[in-house]
């Protein structure tokens, strides 16, 4: 791809996608954590 050797293509080009995937995974993880925290603050955990 892009006239690069196979080794360079496979070892270097996926990285931007890996970083974006990591960012999205962490975003959703932290969003879930924040929701749990809000539930706790509102006392929903005690009822549930």
């Amino acid at each position, binding site marked *: 791809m892009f006239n690069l050797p196979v080794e360079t293509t496979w070892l270097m080009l996926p990285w*931007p996608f*890996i970083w*974006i995937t*990591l*960012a999205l995974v*962490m975003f959703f993880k*932290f969003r879930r954590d924040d929701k*749990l925290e809000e*539930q706790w*603050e509102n006392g929903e955990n005690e009822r549930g």
Partner: protein
Amino acid sequence: MNLDITIFFIYLLGMLAIGLYFTRRASTSVDHYLLGNRKIGAPVTAVSMQSTSMSGFMFMGGPAQAFQEGWHALWYAIGDAGGSIVNLSVLGKRMRRLSQLIGALSPIEYLEKRYESASVRVVGSVIAIIFLFAYAFAQFIAAGKALESLSGFSYELALIIGVGVIIIYTVAGGYLAVAVSGFIQGIIMLIGVTAIGVMAIPYVGGISGLNESLRAIDPTYLSIWGRDLIYYGQWGVILGAVLIYAIGYMGLPHVTVRHMSMQSPKTVKNAIIWSAAFNQLFTFTPYILGLSAIVLLPTISDPEMVIPELAYTFFPGVLAALLLSAIMAAIMSTCDSLLMQAGTTLSRDVYHRFINPKASHKQVLLVSRLCILVGGIIGIVLATYEPPAVFTLVVFAFGVLGNTFLVPYVASVYSKKANKGGVLCAMIGGAGTNIVWETFTLQNVTGLHPFLAGLLISIIGMVIGNTFGRTPSPPILESFELAKYNHRIPKNLEKGISDDIAPEAKNISRFINSSFRPRSRGEAKILEE
């Protein structure tokens, strides 16, 4: 006056205006001056974190590396593209909470309070002050060099203009000015580099055409092992090249302070998305431009000037003007944070902690401002001698700071057992290894990048040292647990009220304790009223 200089001066005036705008707010309290009262939102946290991390290296050192080594240099860009995502994900929430729970206002004070040791603060302060100033000093020279070659000013005049503006707005506006200007500078950097990239890359036939041309010049330019396969099979060098920026930012005090200043732990998730977008758009282009210069400017005498040369040779006018501001933005956004952090360490961690513990808020603020001012002026004087190899000094200072503080910061929020013994071994071992590795160029002998060597020794130092140190006290263990589990944090701490009410809380506590002693009827009546 040329268009590029006019636009550049408008940019400088804008930076000064930011500093002056935040002057009054910065003077409200030490917390306001050093941490922006912990009210920094996600976009400013993310973009200023990245613009601070990247420095003038991205416009000068990085492209020069790509020009000399080919695609191998992209390993550094790959690490850089994920640096702040990793940093925010690993440290963000926990460090924000713990720093507030233990009442730390500086990253070095944070280490002392977490590890309950004044010697940690002494060692941390000494290393931080030496290498933060060395790092800032290198940025001064870069600013002078860039402005001299782009504007035609003399080096001394360029240095005084560029660095003078940084010192004024940092001294006046404190951390808030540094963070907000860092955000604006990050956006200018992105626009500048994207504009040059959009113009230059089609000029060489896109990425495919560029690689075809590189193959024709020397096929090893396309290899991951460097030109002439100089690093062939040396995975230790490649791993170190990726890790120095992917995780190294977690060890830079002027970058980790961004976690402490966030509005709340909830800021982290949005900051990660901002970082991911900004990094993928920005980080790779300077290196690709360095590769383009192999084709477009093969005879250039100073590889560090490939991006300015590309802009001024092929795209003069507004684009070149934009680039001048973008390069200076990259340098200034790092330089102001370095000066700010060095000033904070001197005022908060040295003066307030060891010289004058009873200093008032006003005195600490004054000392902080004076330290930044004096450090800046000394830096200008030293930089006029213009020592060579600016970016060698940048990489060296970066590596030593990363190897000193990375393991202590990560362990502070992930290892309950981490203690004074471990952190001292990690800091001294990490810094010492990096210095020895660089001084004796052991990378060539061992095939191990200095950063990777320092990191390994720092981790080993932390593990072994922990077995000798004292277990953290119950209040620290409790804070550690609170920082870990977000739902158990008291709501008032999240809102940032705790610092404001801390002195009052202490007085109330004293009052309650004293109220248990037997009282006369008159005293009791006054209390009831």
